[in-house]
């Protein structure tokens, strides 16, 4: 769930916009480089964006008695590195801000920073770290997507706590309050997103083996396997 339109003071809105802009511009360059050097990856990029589109449209009940939605940014961050998601995530946010009055234009910078930048980077970092520890790829994918989802809403909580500190307990009190609303609600949803990302990655590893090997998600197939024959 994003910060609603007009619900960040102008100064904060501008600051988050300024913080996000370089990431989105860099992401757009990285994306066009990727498409130019590997035209065949355009389809998979589209599929990663589509995954974010689906997941962020689904408002799901959670243990706190409120609803929130996953982000779907972990998949693309793992496949194409986080800069690609800075663009795809921002497009999703723009769609929701313009057509659904969900999130907003004045809060687009802040929401892009949490969902399209911080989330994908956190997820990617967790994924890389676990891969380095030689854990099974799908375990790494699960925790990567989980981290991307949950960290998005932790950042949202920080953003709101910075803008609206508690009158008596200050930033810390406000962080606990917004964290209770966003982050706790998000925990089961982050588990769901992790599982769904694993599901899609499993389907991809059957249908797009060559692509996943090139992107470094799967180890190159051994010459005796059927994949090598199909290529």
């Amino acid at each position: 769930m994003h910060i609603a339109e007009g619900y960040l003071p102008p100064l904060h809105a501008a600051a988050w916009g300024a913080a996000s802009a370089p990431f989105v511009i860099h992401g757009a360059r990285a994306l066009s480089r990727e498409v130019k050097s590997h035209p065949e990856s355009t389809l998979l990029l589209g599929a990663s964006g589509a995954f974010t589109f689906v997941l962020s449209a689904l408002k799901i009940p959670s243990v706190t008695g409120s609803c929130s939605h996953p982000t779907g940014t972990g998949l693309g961050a793992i496949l194409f590195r986080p800069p690609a998601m800075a663009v795809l995530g921002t497009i999703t946010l723009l769609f929701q801000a313009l057509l659904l009055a969900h999130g907003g234009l004045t809060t687009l910078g802040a929401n892009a920073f949490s969902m399209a930048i911080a989330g994908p980077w956190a997820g990617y970092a967790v994924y890389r770290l676990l891969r380095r520890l030689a854990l099974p790829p799908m375990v790494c994918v699960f925790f990567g997507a989980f981290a991307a989802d949950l960290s998005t809403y932790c950042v949202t909580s920080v953003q709101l706590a910075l803008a609206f500190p508690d009158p008596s307990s200050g930033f810390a009190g406000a962080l606990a309050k917004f964290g209770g609303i966003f982050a706790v609600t998000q925990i089961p949803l982050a588990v769901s997103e992790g599982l769904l990302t694993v599901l899609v990655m499993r389907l991809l590893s059957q249908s797009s083996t060559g692509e996943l090997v090139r992107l470094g998600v799967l180890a190159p197939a051994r010459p005796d396997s059927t994949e090598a024959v199909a290529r």
Partner: protein
Amino acid sequence: MSRNAKINTLLLAVVVALAALPVVLGMGDHKEEPFTGSDAQAQTAITENEPDYEPWFSPLYEPASGEIESALFALQAALGAGVLAYYFGLRRGRRQGEERAAAAAGASSGTPAE
């Protein structure tokens, strides 16, 4: 069902259970209005922390009713699901086509046609 399909089904079942259990167990019963959006709750919390805060910008377009809003959310999900389905369908078709071509080439000459 193959082992693969079993694992995939299990993954989906857990996701469905995670979404359904809070409702089934009545975890929203302590609230006046159960299962509202967390963004609406954040707006309430903002007004608690800063009672005179007035949103200084309103959405350019706001769906006229909850029905229209849910239609647009469904449209968003449908667009995403459509592209995903197109991707997997295309991949599957290509793979089957390649296999068929390879089989045909193997049967006719023993060497790949390309």
